[in-house]
């Protein structure tokens, strides 16, 4: 699709909005509909669009294997780490109330971080899956 300049230009224009929308869904998740999972998928869909238009090679340059892989692990670690942190602060696992002096703030903070972990994991997983299926010859 490299030759279709219209598609290329439109894609370039759309990309920032897709990513910003993903971030909106991500951080608004604890107030309204949304959350890490949806945000991750939206983020990944933006990336998929990019790959479709600009090709696998470019995509791999943006998101090399080590990056998606690390992000994948990091997301899980953030999620699990938040839970452990709440245990260290004296609560039960994933008991966000323990994360700050004010339980309300604690809940807020906890959900924010956990959802971030989820978002990163889901985005990385989606991107990895897509790239692996598209690449076929390489694994990650």
């Amino acid at each position, binding site marked *: 699709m490299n030759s279709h300049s219209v598609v290329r230009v439109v894609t370039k224009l759309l990309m920032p909005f897709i990513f910003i929308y993903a971030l909106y869904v991500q951080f608004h998740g604890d107030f309204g509909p949304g959350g890490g999972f949806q945000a991750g998928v939206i983020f990944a869909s933006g990336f998929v669009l990019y790959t479709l238009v600009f090709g696998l090679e470019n995509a791999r340059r943006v998101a090399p294997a080590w990056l998606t892989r*690390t992000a994948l*692990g990091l997301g899980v*670690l953030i999620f699990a780490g938040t839970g452990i942190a709440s245990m260290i602060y004296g609560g*039960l*696992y994933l008991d966000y109330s323990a994360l700050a002096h004010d339980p309300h703030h604690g809940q807020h903070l906890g959900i924010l971080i956990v959802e971030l972990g989820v978002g990163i994991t889901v985005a990385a997983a989606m991107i990895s899956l897509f790239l692996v299926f598209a690449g076929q010859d390489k694994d990650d």
Partner: protein
Amino acid sequence: MIFSHIPVLQVIVPLVAAPLCVIFPFRKFCWTVALAATLTSLWIALTLLITVYAHGPITYELGGWAAPWGIGYRIDILSAYMTVLVSLISSVILVFSPRSIGAEISNARAHLFYTLYLLNLTGLLGIAVTGDAFNLFVFLEISSLSSYALIAMGQDRRALTAAFQYLIMGTIGATFYIIAVGLMYAMTGTLNIADLAQRLPEVMETRTILVALAFLIVGIGLKIALFPFHGWLPNAYTYAPSVVSAFLAATATKVAVYILLRILFSVFGPDAVAAMPIAQPLMILALFAMTIGSAVAIFQDDAKRLLAYSSIAQIGYIILGISFLSVTGLTGGILHLFNHALMKSALFLSLGAVFYRIGSVQISDMAGLGRRMPWTMAAFVVGGMSLVGTPLTVGFISKWYLIRAALESGWWPIAVLVLASSLLAMIYIWRVVEIAYFRGHPEAGADIKEAPLSMLVPIWFLTGANIYFGINTGDTITAARAAATMLLGGPQ
């Protein structure tokens, strides 16, 4: 302080270790992390078992949300027993793994193996500790998905189709489970197992719940590989890497049986189960599994495939014990759960060592191995004897209980069948023994060496356990009987 968190740590430790292996893809590092995580899990599991023994069931509320709103972990004697089983076997297999993985899985993928292995462990342990029917599904999927990927890592191209078939069948099983959970949720408004148990009796007679029960039995039956839902298992175990076969054979199907026990006895309750036509069909399927599995195993040429069919038969024994719905029968089933894990892991690991040395597990290629790899083959023989049910091995203990249960219920023909199928087991084990010891030119394969110590030690650890628990029967029987009594509604 940390002590009060151990129920959740049981799951978190492998869960945290898994991403570490992805982020730092260095073989040795991953192995160390994985081993540390499984050993910690084992320590936690043992602590849990001792605590549950002394003080009764432990509960843990995630995020501080009380059940039935939040997800609660609830560990009773059966859960603790399962966590010990799973983490023990997985630790031993990990000790065994480095060389076997080195030979069977490419260097670039080794870290993925450890990641998936830890995720699988997370799922299996999670199933055992959770007290929430939906959370159980999540863990089931974690363990299932990782096992599909683990099987697909096999060298043989057929590993891919085997994994794919397992994926389809496993997904159907999990879907059936979640459909049933949904139906029960619709009728009771709760997902917590203890809560479900309280609210189900009122709606027991409704068609919704009855359909849910049918979905549950078939769905879990698929994960257990109960005859005739076993079709995916032979290929999966045959073509998976050796350590994966050992791990899955010893733990995955066992945890699936655990789910069945939980659903039947903790959710529906022994009375409801006894009132429904559940035990009889299960018993019939179990008898078919026992005889057909063993009979098919006799004619296999591939030793791993032989063990796979033997697993189908052994699962039959476990289900048979459950289907008696008596304390003795359940004790026998639960004992065999543990014992079969010990035998099959020992057997599959010995085959792993054989594969490491001769690059094949075709029975015909094993001629003369009794001389070349005496310790490995001796372990195989002991494991096989345990499978047959020779006294002084664990196999004898569980079969003893099964036979006793059959006789107590007045089903003596079933006791005969149990014995007859152990004769079949003797035949298929003998086939391997005969080739390994009595065939082959004395000079043939003189360059084949005994397996390295790093393999022999774990193999013989498990083999020794087969003998140890066959002689010192007190602990396992007490635990199994306590679990059986608890499931049947006795004093906890």
